[in-house]
């Protein structure tokens, strides 16, 4: 691990100045391939309906589910479409789930005057015991009941259900299965330790100064200014830094210009201007020393709908001078030194969190991997571009490292798939609150959190460092 390797060298800094000081060369990039092309949007047209994305999603996922169903329930299982169903006959149906939630915010209900409803306050979860599951395929839809847990599932999931139609017109489910993991290419074997640093939620412009020192310490560790020689040597093995979204804080999103009178806001600058300047300086420091990939997040100045397009380089005049700075999409996938990375800035996971009973972000991350779709709630409750030719959020092959940013706390797990796939799941915590980043070791596919702290007036029991007993 990073620490152990760092500790191997002798401590030299608590001594008088020595004649020469070691300088380490950053490990060169051996192979890097950005495969986020499916997430780049060229000409955008919003004149289409969103039904097409569901149609293509089902079309693309159907073969995967059919093969899984046959694996699970035998080759003899009958795969039928909803229109072909006979009452009482046991068969398997492949379709898209829809969850009817009474608590789901609906704009139509809000503005409808006959209900006289006040706008709902935002809740952390919109699930309700009365949520109903409906299975839809190309032509029909049918209500589901039985041994299927409605609270865990969300709208937009494509799955296969085994059961039979009741006389009531509902489908009684006996078993269900997901598409599970896609095929995976084997991970390469590396001879030296190489690290990739994953950070998310820098939250600049947030007003609170506590995280600024942490951010500076992070940059100093990566650029090799901080620490003893051992640590600097290990830091030189960090071959890449990925900033996974929410570089700007939620506070920079305040829309004073909309709420306040114009004469009050005429000469005020948007809060994001200062924050972007700070970000530019940080990116300059980083890109002068290490290749950086910057993904946009929920509060960053780019488009709202998924897939989010890269931030514009004109915002970073200082940092774009270096070719090591790369502005990438959200979601982002790339092959770094032969290891396939795929990750998002966390909007997909937090949206599923709101509409399902799953509590742990890492668990949700694993679940999205199992249903073979990055964000199933995409057009329903999460903004998405109206694709019609194909759904780019379907996993066509399985990554080695799958991460999502801006989770409340750090989480990391190795997940094994049915065909011996091995995926490292990383829930990258929000840096502005946790001061924690993630170091992924490409050789061993392990992840170590790295956290930073300063000291404050109240730190009597080292609580801030998390070192209290």
């Amino acid at each position, binding site marked *: *691990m990073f*620490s152990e390797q760092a*500790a191997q060298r002798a*401590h*030299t*800094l*608590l*001594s*008088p*100045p020595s004649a020469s*000081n*070691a*300088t*380490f*060369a*950053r490990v*060169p990039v051996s192979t890097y391939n950005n495969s986020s092309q499916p997430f780049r949007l060229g000409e955008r047209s919003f004149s289409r309906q969103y039904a097409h994305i569901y149609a293509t999603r089902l079309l693309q996922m159907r073969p995967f589910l059919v093969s899984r169903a046959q694996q699970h329930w035998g080759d003899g299982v009958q795969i039928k479409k909803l229109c072909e169903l006979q009452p009482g006959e046991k068969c398997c149906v492949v379709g898209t789930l829809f969850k009817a939630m009474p608590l789901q915010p609906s704009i139509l209900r809000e503005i409808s005057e006959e209900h006289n409803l006040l706008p709902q306050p935002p809740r952390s979860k919109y699930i309700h015991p009365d949520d109903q599951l409906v299975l839809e395929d190309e032509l029909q839809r049918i209500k589901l009941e039985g041994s299927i847990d409605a609270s865990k599932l969300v709208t937009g999931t494509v799955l296969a259900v085994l059961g039979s139609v009741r006389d009531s017109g509902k489908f009684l489910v006996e078993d269900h299965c997901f598409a599970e993991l896609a095929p995976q290419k084997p991970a390469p074997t590396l001879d030296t330790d190489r690290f990739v640093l994953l950070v998310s939620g820098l939250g600049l412009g947030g007003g609170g100064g506590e995280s*600024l*020192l942490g951010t*500076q310490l992070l940059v100093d*560790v990566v650029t*090799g*200014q*901080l*620490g*003893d*020689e051992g*640590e*600097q040597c*290990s*830091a*030189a093995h960090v071959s890449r830094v990925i900033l996974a979204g929410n570089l700007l804080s939620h506070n920079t999103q305040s829309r004073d210009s909309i709420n306040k009178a114009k004469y009050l806001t005429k000469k005020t600058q948007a809060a994001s201007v200062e924050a972007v300047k700070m970000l530019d*300086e940080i990116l*300059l*420091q980083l890109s002068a*020393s*290490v*290749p950086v990939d910057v993904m946009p997040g929920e509060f960053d100045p780019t488009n709202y709908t998924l897939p989010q397009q890269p931030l514009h380089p004109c915002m970073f005049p200082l940092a*774009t*001078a270096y*070719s*090591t700075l790369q502005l990438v999409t959200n979601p982002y996938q790339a092959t770094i030194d032969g290891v396939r990375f795929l990750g998002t800035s966390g909007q997909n996971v937090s949206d599923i969190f709101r509409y399902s009973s799953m509590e742990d972000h890492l668990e949700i991350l694993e679940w999205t991997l199992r249903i073979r779709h990055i964000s199933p709630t995409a057009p329903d409750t999460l903004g998405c571009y109206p694709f019609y030719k194909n759904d780019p959020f379907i996993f066509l092959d399985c990554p080695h490292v799958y991460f999502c940013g801006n989770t409340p706390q*750090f989480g990391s797990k190795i997940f094994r798939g049915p065909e011996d796939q091995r995926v490292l799941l990383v829930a990258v915590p929000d840096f502005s609150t946790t001061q*924690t980043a993630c*170091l992924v070791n490409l050789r061993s596919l392990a992840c*170590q*959190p*790295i*956290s*930073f*702290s*300063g*000291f*404050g*007036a109240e*730190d009597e029991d*080292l609580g801030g*460092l*998390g*070192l209290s007993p």
Partner: protein
Amino acid sequence: MADQLYLENIDEFVTDQNKIVTYKWLSYTLGVHVNQAKQMLYDYVERKRKENSGAQLHVTYLVSGSLIQNGHSCHKVAVVREDKLEAVKSKLAVTASIHVYSIQKAMLKDSGPLFNTDYDILKSNLQNCSKFSAIQCAAAVPRAPAESSSSEKFEQSNLQVSSETPANHELTTNGHSPPTSKQILQQPKGIMGMFASKAVSKTQDVNKETKTETKEVSSVGNKAPGKGNVMSNFFGKAAMNKLKVNLDSEQAVKEEKIVEQPPVSVTEPKLAVPTGLKKSSKKAEPVKMQQKEKKSNRGKRVELSDDETKETENLKKKRRRIKLPESDSSEDEVIADSPGDYEAESPSPPPPPSPPPEPVPKTEQEPPSVKSSSGEKRKRKRVLKSKTFVDEEGCIVTEKVYESESCTDSEEELKMKTSSIHRPSTMTVKKEPKEERKGPKKGTAALGKANRQVSITGFFQRK
């Protein structure tokens, strides 16, 4: 000794200047490797404490290492005060590094000032932020200026174009002077006629004065044979002398000087007037001044055209293209010359418009100084004049030269409007009696109405 130098430096920083000396700050200030800076700090602390155990020194350390937390081995990096150092060290399973982070005289309550110190020194060294770092990245090479400055080049070219355009403006205006003078002749007549009719309606002294003056002028103007005469026609009696003087001097470089030599206030109104003049010769006093200006300007322009036809031709063409797109109203000219140069022209409008509103006095003063020189000053003079010409009303002036035939009314209207705008700016002109100021405004208003109310279809005819 070199060794002791850094000790003295640190001593000075900490005790005398009461600074917070972080390793990064020291590294940038002394220009040493970060690790060496850390060692220097440690050395200083040790020595100082040996010499004087009661030394007022507070030290913060950086500790990093791993710790088992929630089942993970978490790497911690922390800045701690000296008194907490041992406690933190004991908690870590593996200690990766310890070194001095900063030295300061006063006890720090929290780590905020440390961050500020580092941030400040970083800001001033942004371009070589990894110079003293322990890691050097071969791939982090700033893009070659050629690549990154493609946008800068565009900007530079714009700036160059904008700097050229003012010069070009002058030449073009100068080049256009002959035709415009003729056009102006016709316009004033019509204007004068209209003005006269409108002036009658006003009972104010000013109007009467202007009316009489215009009548005189118009009467004189009717006889107008040559340019100079024509010019003088527009001017009132009082201005005749000056006009004559101007006319006489126009032929020579000195002429311009002379023209400029008269009180600056005179020049001021003149310069101010050109703008107004160009727009509408209807205004009495303003008209006078305008006429004066016009005359002088035209004269100069004529001179220019006479003297520097060749020189100005190319420039004219260039300028035309550049200038024309600038002016909003010079659509015809733009189309005629080169619509494509709009972008090139775009930077130039800002410079021209900006001078006119304010620096009417300034511009006026410029010609005098310029005219004091000889020969080449003509160019400058002309340039300047044309500048002001343009500045005051953008390309309206040139428009006039070009298109007196096509859109007299619109130009006059514009002139009137612009001249009314410039009226306030010319208030500083000493020469102008206040009556004149009042007169012009009213005159412009009346003239404006006169223009607009000629006929319902007049609106379309103007175009």
